[in-house]
């Protein structure tokens, strides 16, 4: 079974080489003469005003959590899609109940306005 994944391993290895090689080659072959002026911050001639890490709004967190929940729903749908023809109506009914529960939650968040951005 694992031999099916050999192309993926090769792909990952090639990707890593292509990603790492330019950096390493640049370090090795390029001239390296650091000084403070090169490393100093610049922003259209000004010193930088503030830290780049601004504080995020809590609404991003809500969107991320709702995304995880529906991501998990998809994770349950994959094995179901493979076997539901074998298992027949009980499996279809079971997934119907599961989807109904999540649809209730989806309608709730839709009507509550949690998906709307200001």
């Amino acid at each position, binding site marked *: 079974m694992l031999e099916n994944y050999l192309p993926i391993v090769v792909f990952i290895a090639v990707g890593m080489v292509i990603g790492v090689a330019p950096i390493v080659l640049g370090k090795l072959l390029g001239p390296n003469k650091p000084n403070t002026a090169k490393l100093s911050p610049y922003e259209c001639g000004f010193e930088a005003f503030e830290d780049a890490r*601004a504080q995020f709004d809590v609404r991003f967190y809500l969107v991320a959590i709702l995304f995880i929940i529906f991501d998990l729903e998809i994770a*349950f749908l*994959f094995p179901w899609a493979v076997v539901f023809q074998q298992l027949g109506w009980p499996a279809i009914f079971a997934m119907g*109940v599961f989807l109904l529960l999540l649809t*209730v939650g989806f309608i709730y*968040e839709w009507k509550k306005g949690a998906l*709307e951005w*200001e």
Partner: protein
Amino acid sequence: MEIDWLKFFFYCYAALALFGATMVIFSRNSVRAVLFLVLTFVASAGLWMLLQAEFLALILILVYVGAVMVLFLFVVMMLNMNLSPLKEGFVRYLPLGILIAATIVAQLVWVYKNTDMAALHLGELAQKPADYSNITELGLALYTDYLYPFEIAGVILLVAIIAAIALTFRGPQNRRSQNIAVQVATRKDDRLRVIKDVGPDSDLKA
């Protein structure tokens, strides 16, 4: 030769996972720590793949790397934390941490010593046919024997949706949105007032 390659990949992924986990603890920048946690999860997915758990390995990448780590990044950026005050308690809590780590290691060793490794048929893992489908096995178990826990998982996800909204949703703050139902239900009397005679004594005079 097959076994040798399995061992080679196992040691690669195990080393990567240990490296990532160590860097999660030691990196000064919390965003970098999250990215190293991503590396740890990817390496763990590789290890699960070597155990022939292909569906779980891919779901680990899909759910943990794709979704949970995004949530972690948002939390790290939301808290906007400065790490220096967090590092202050390091020495103070070190004995407790060592105690917990030692307990976990002792448990792992105890389980390893007291389990008959030959009875686990570890050798059989490598002998699955090429068309063996992990997802089919999982689906056949999940939607027959474990149907009830599966529906409970659905209820837990529903509770999670409602809890997340209840905890973090603050309602519309400065949103200018249409409420079509209210607009349609409006009657003429709500919007329009016909003023017939404004005499000098009327209170309607501006």
